[in-house]
């Protein structure tokens, strides 16, 4: 059975997606556990000790993949937002809303681990380097999205308003990154890039990629769980949901 034969569109409605998501979650959860464990092992045990930074640098194996995920999830969120506005698709709006908390979480992890790395390096809990500052502003964008979602009571309006905000945000993200870099060179702040090592050993890169993949699996599992909750809550009145609840 080729992929084209499966009628994908039928899963774009909440009643069809709900059970599908439920079946998929365990696989992603298992994959996430395995990959994160593997990534941590590679990062903390296999990767060579950096002669400049000692053992403390190992936190980048969490920091860098988390930062990647925070960006990736924002882009994904904006993509679903575009679908929600363009196609007026309920499920896309729910997906965007479900992605936001996980994206914000990874941003927070990236910021905290970045801070923990910075302390032994430069003696300060926070440095205003371009990457960390941009990550901080990304967190603000996530907070804005989540605040808007929770402040508006009408669900449909909340979805569409936050979708507009997500799209405005995604357009601004490259502008923000550029402006922060510009700001950094202007004020000659900390120019050490947290993610550049003079030459990254193979195992280091591998560890980061494995962790990133693990985080991605985790995100999928968690987002699917969350979107099922959102579906259940919103469609609670609908016939198909009531039938399900009764039959459970």
């Amino acid at each position, binding site marked *: 059975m080729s992929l084209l034969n499966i009628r994908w569109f039928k899963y774009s409605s909440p009643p069809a997606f709900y059970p599908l998501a439920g079946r998929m979650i365990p696989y992603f959860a298992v994959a996430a556990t395995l990959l994160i464990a593997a990534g941590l092992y590679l990062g903390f045990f296999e990767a060579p000790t950096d002669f400049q930074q000692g053992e403390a640098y190992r936190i980048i194996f969490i920091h860098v993949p988390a930062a990647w995920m925070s960006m990736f999830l924002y882009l994904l969120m904006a993509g679903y937002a575009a679908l929600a506005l363009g196609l007026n698709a309920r499920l896309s709006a729910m997906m965007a809303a479900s992605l936001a908390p996980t994206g914000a979480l990874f941003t927070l992890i990236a910021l905290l681990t970045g801070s923990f790395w910075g302390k032994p390096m430069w003696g300060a809990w926070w440095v205003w380097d371009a990457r960390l500052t941009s990550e901080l502003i990304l967190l603000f964008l996530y907070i804005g999205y989540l605040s808007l979602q929770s402040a508006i*009571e*009408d*669900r*449909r309006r909340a979805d569409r308003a936050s979708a507009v905000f997500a799209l405005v945000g995604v357009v601004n993200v490259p502008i923000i990154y550029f402006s922060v870099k510009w700001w950094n060179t202007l004020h000659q702040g900390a120019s050490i890039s947290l993610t550049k090592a003079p030459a990254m050993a193979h195992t280091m890169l591998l560890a980061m990629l494995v962790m990133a993949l693990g985080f991605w699996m985790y995100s999928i599992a968690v987002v699917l769980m969350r979107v099922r909750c959102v579906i259940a809550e*919103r469609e609670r*009145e609908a016939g198909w949901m009531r039938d399900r609840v009764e039959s459970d």
Partner: protein
Amino acid sequence: MLLASDLACERGGRTLFSGLNFSLKRGSLLHVQGANGSGKTSLLRLLCRLSTPVAGKISWDGEDVRELREEYSAQITYIGHQPAIKDELNVLENLQTAQMLAGQPVERDQALHALGLLGIKKYAHLPARVLSQGQKRRVALARLWLSSTPLWVLDEPFNALDAEATNLLQQRIENHLDDGGMAVLTTHQTPSIAVHRVNLLVLA
């Protein structure tokens, strides 16, 4: 002609109505009735394109209003619950601004004449904030004597009007229908307009 097909409306997660169909020809009136909260105002707002229906479509003279956009807006005079009056401007300025925004600017004299017909000409230069609710409604309704749009969408237009003003308004609506215009309105009263011109739509 205004045509609604299979219209469905949701508000706050509840479906107010679905599968709604009606057609309205020139020279006729659609009287929308229903209990409070049955979706009368929502329907009127849908007809004005202020909100979008969850399902179904609205067409004006055969074309989908979503395609027509501003062209369709130019056909409508909408008077909602609120009189849409700025307290800081005087009555005359309010009326002229409202007409300007509707794309049908009027001269001072025309505006004053309309205000006179409604018995509020003496307030023309007073700031709108000193007017009572009924008087503000008259200012809002004065537009109906100035606008030349074919479709009127009126939400509870007879609210806060005394008997004299009610008669005036009914007559004006009749004249509008005579001239080939059409109107959609909600009201708890029964407008005394020739029965054969009135289509009744009751929302459950």
